[in-house]
């Protein structure tokens, strides 16, 4: 029993969740496209179909015949032997200080915590308005990530000032929420 739970834990990763999101969204949009007029159904149907096939192949890749599995997992981009994709983060920064499994776990934990804080920020912003939710979010981040006391006090104040500035500049009232 423990063995199968462990095996399930290895197989069901956040990537699985990502692929399920792709698959479910694409399936819904594919089915729904049959309600639209022919002219405007073509594109979403095509895109949904490709997404469904891609997501399904990736979800089932461990169960595919070897050749097909290699083709699905293969790195085949023209620029593959050059640097990582043009995103801002840099993996070298990770390599500098993070080498052990424990360090990787800590990395992941911090990222998961931040995702949680972002979700709460979004909900709180809707409930009490972003002007108040912003400094609360920043304070929570500073406390959870154990920033120095001075920064824990200064950053939320900075956040509040930024939020107030946006509230004054933008035509929309971001200070009002459902509850406040």
């Amino acid at each position, binding site marked *: 029993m423990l063995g199968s739970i462990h095996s399930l834990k290895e197989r069901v990763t956040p990537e699985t969740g990502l692929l399920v999101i792709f698959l479910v969204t694409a399936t819904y949009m594919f089915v729904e496209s049959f309600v639209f007029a022919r002219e405007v159904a073509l594109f979403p149907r095509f895109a949904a179909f490709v997404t469904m096939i891609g997501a399904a192949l990736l979800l089932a890749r461990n169960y595919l015949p070897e050749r097909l599995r290699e083709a699905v997992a293969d790195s085949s981009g023209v620029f593959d032997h050059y640097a990582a994709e*043009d995103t801002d*983060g840099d993996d*070298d920064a990770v390599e500098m200080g993070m080498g052990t499994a424990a360090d990787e776990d800590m990395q992941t934990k911090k990222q998961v915590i931040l995702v949680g804080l972002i979700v709460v920020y979004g909900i709180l912003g809707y409930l009490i308005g972003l002007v108040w939710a912003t400094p609360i979010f920043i304070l929570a981040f500073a406390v959870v*990530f154990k920033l120095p006391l001075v920064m824990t006090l200064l950053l939320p104040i900075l956040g509040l000032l930024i939020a107030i500035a946006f509230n004054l500049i933008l035509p929309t009232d971001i200070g009002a929420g459902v509850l406040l």
Partner: protein
Amino acid sequence: MSQEAFFSALELLFSWPTIGWMVLGLLAGILIGAIPGLGPNLGMAVVLPLTVPLDGADAIILLISIYSGTMYGGSIAAILINTPGTAAAAATTLDGYPMTRQGRAMDALSISATASAIGGSFAMVTILLLTPFLTIIVLLFTSPEYFLIALFGIALITVVARGSMVKGITAGAFGLLLSTIGFPVAAGAPRYTFDLLILTDGLSFVAVLIGIFAVGEMIKLAGEEGSIADEEVTLEGSVFEGARDVLRSPVTTIKSGYIGMLIGAIPGSGASISNFISYAEAVRSKSGDVEFGSGNYLGVIASEASNNGTVGGSLIPTFSFGIPGSGATAILLGGLLMHGLRPGPSMFTENLDVTYSVFVALLVGNLIIITVGLLIITRAMYITMINSDYLIPVVIALATLGSFGVRGSWLDVYTVLIFGVLGFFMMKYNYSIIAFVLGIVLGPIAEENLIRSLQLSDGSLLIFVNEPLPLLLTLMTLAVVASPLVSAIRSYLRDYREG
């Protein structure tokens, strides 16, 4: 007409506050680029909604100046602490950091500033000279050609997407799919709106980009060390010697700038590729004569000249066809659309002065880079000591608050947050973000022009092959789509024969 527009652009650029925005953008870009973990995409994504009150030309010049500044800024951390500030400076570490270890840090930083300026300038002068010809080509494009060029851009995903091709195609198709939410171009009922008014205009791709490149990157950064440089690096060497090294190597410098320009013009590529290709070319051309990877200044020149050349090159498909050359130009495209500047013929006719002003801003900006770069060399170390943990919550807050500036809609706020999280996981598991961006950006362009083309031809697909230009584009697209398949078949046959 070109001459008038050019002089009008000069007048625009050198007036206040436009010149002020350019300088501010460059300085901000250098600072952003120098802090590992940030980079042009994030800087531009956060600033984009803040440009709403600005004039269109000012906004685009500010954004492009940030992009240009980060290309140089990324080299500072690469050279001083062996950690590139941006992916575009990754190849700079190979010889830049060894130069620091050899007591030539100031030489390396000076080489970086000078090579960036010269490589970028040559690329921009070439683009300025080519603009009248580019205008002629762009004006040949009508709806069928625009559909085909958008399709070509999407098809390039299969070639450009790093890692698993299936992941790249899936990400690209998902982006395409999300772009269909809302009211379609052809009249009819809205799609996938659940009868909610808020979804009638669909998802804002600007908000999606802000989510991925600001929030997503911050989540990624949260898992890394807070401050990259633990201690000061002693800056030794000579600024003058470094600049002289570049001036003694005109061929490498100019060639690298052009390599960057050409790579930048390929949708979905970007400076992270061009700096390595340029470095590899420098190694190849000098093979046997000199050693690379242990403090060879030519390695720094090759990498830095190319990444600034990339900035100019990436503007070609962006301004001409609305096809982003990179993540940063996808954000720039968002800026163009937000300010009522539509890529395509209008950027080369009634808005030609804006186009020229952006190109000239990049050219002039390169001169500012060399000045600022050489002046800040002695203080450069301190930038790398900024603790990125302090920046993470502030950047997320800026991105979230700024998203309201896009359309004043709560939908955009949630789009930023949701795609920030989604984008992070896509990056973590190597789903091509550029493919996704190409899908979401090009989807509406492709669909709009497909529908218009079919309306023009009464539903006949022959409109895409009955003239030389659409036929050429169709063949190019088929070649791109077929090439990985042909490659796979050849590989299979080879294995079969051997096996």
